[in-house]
């Protein structure tokens, strides 16, 4: 499954990138390549170990103090 996934992403990336470069979107192509690498690394990481901390917990950590701050200001 992992192997198939990597192959699929790589083929998709190859076709996609080649068409981007053919249309002379050079800068865009490199950014796209970067995102592909992130996506690939991300999916391999996900497949290798299923336990990934959800990003939402991080969001909660940031949002909570702000909410509390706002609420306390409102109460003042």
């Amino acid at each position: 499954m992992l192997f198939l996934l990597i192959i699929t992403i790589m083929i998709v990336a190859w076709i996609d990138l080649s068409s981007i470069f053919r249309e002379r979107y050079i800068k865009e192509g490199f950014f796209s390549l970067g995102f592909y690498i992130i996506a690939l690394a991300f999916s391999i990481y996900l497949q290798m170990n299923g336990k990934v901390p959800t990003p939402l917990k991080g969001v909660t950590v940031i949002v909570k103090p702000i909410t509390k701050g706002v609420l306390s200001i409102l109460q003042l």
Partner: protein
Amino acid sequence: MRMDEKINVRQFTLLLTLFTIGTSVLITPSQLATLAKESAWIAASMSVFGGLLVLLLYLFIGHLQPHLNLFQHNEYAFGKWLGKLFTLIIVLFSLIGASTVLWTVGDFVIVQVIPETPLAAICILFMTIIVYGTKLGIETIVKTVEIFFPWIIMLLTIIVLFSIPSMDIKQLQPLWGQPISKVVEASIYELSISTFPLILLFVLYPSVLNPDSKGTRSILLGYLFAEFLIMSITVIAISVLGYKLTSHYVYPTYVMAERIEFIVLLDRLEVVIAISWILSIFFKLFIYFYISLIGISQLLGLKHYRPVTIPMGIIVIGLALIIYPDSIFAGKWNKETWVPLSIIIGVVYPIVLLCGSKIKSILRRNHRG
């Protein structure tokens, strides 16, 4: 990046209506019933007025700098770096929005339509069509909205109409059984799902052709219609199922549709609500994804968003798979973090932007003078 594609006011209105209905139809009745019990419908009708105010704020911002989209407006108001920071926050917000919505689609399909199917398969399939649509561009999408809109509305109306015979008004009593604070809390919750994310849609506002006062009116009417639909579905869900059951089910609207027994042929109508819901959530997910792409290309200074569509799509699929560890967390997060988060993005940020933009234009005028 430039936004060459143009859409007309009607298409924008339809998009806005569907975006408002989006997840709300299926999810909000349950949470409203949990928070405001039998007064949930009062909460739903209250949120209409609150939402209208918020929408007017967005429209005002849209008219402030009619040629800049929200991200360009950021840079105009706060300068390049601070503006980019704001843009980044919005992009992250819409990415989170996109992956939560994608997860919700997957969860709904697994719970109600095809169990035993892995979440990943559904997410990949659904994201594939989103990416395909995004590659085709916003003009194609708004035309697709025009095709699907009557169907979505028709199907939802069928559900509403056929549920009326099994309504029991008693379930809505006592009329003021809940403290007002609970009702307000519930209505803010409703707004956080249906209305505050609309700020993202206003990134597209500069693409709208001639948004004159008549256009503004039709946008407001579209919004009112969507909120009315959400309200009537909430009323019906609670008066058919009772608030206790409504809050017990994850997708009460679906269960409500299950109960409809009108004619033998129209016996099993729940699939109808599933279809209309998946269709409307398609557009909601599209907007989240599209806006995040526009934001990214704005951040990185790309000429067009298309080159990064597919890799971002893959990233969103990955995010959706891990965004919620389980459905319990999802419910809790929606209640506890999403509400303040969307208030920050949907209310605080526009006000800050409004002030920043105003100050900037005054400064600029003085400078010139």
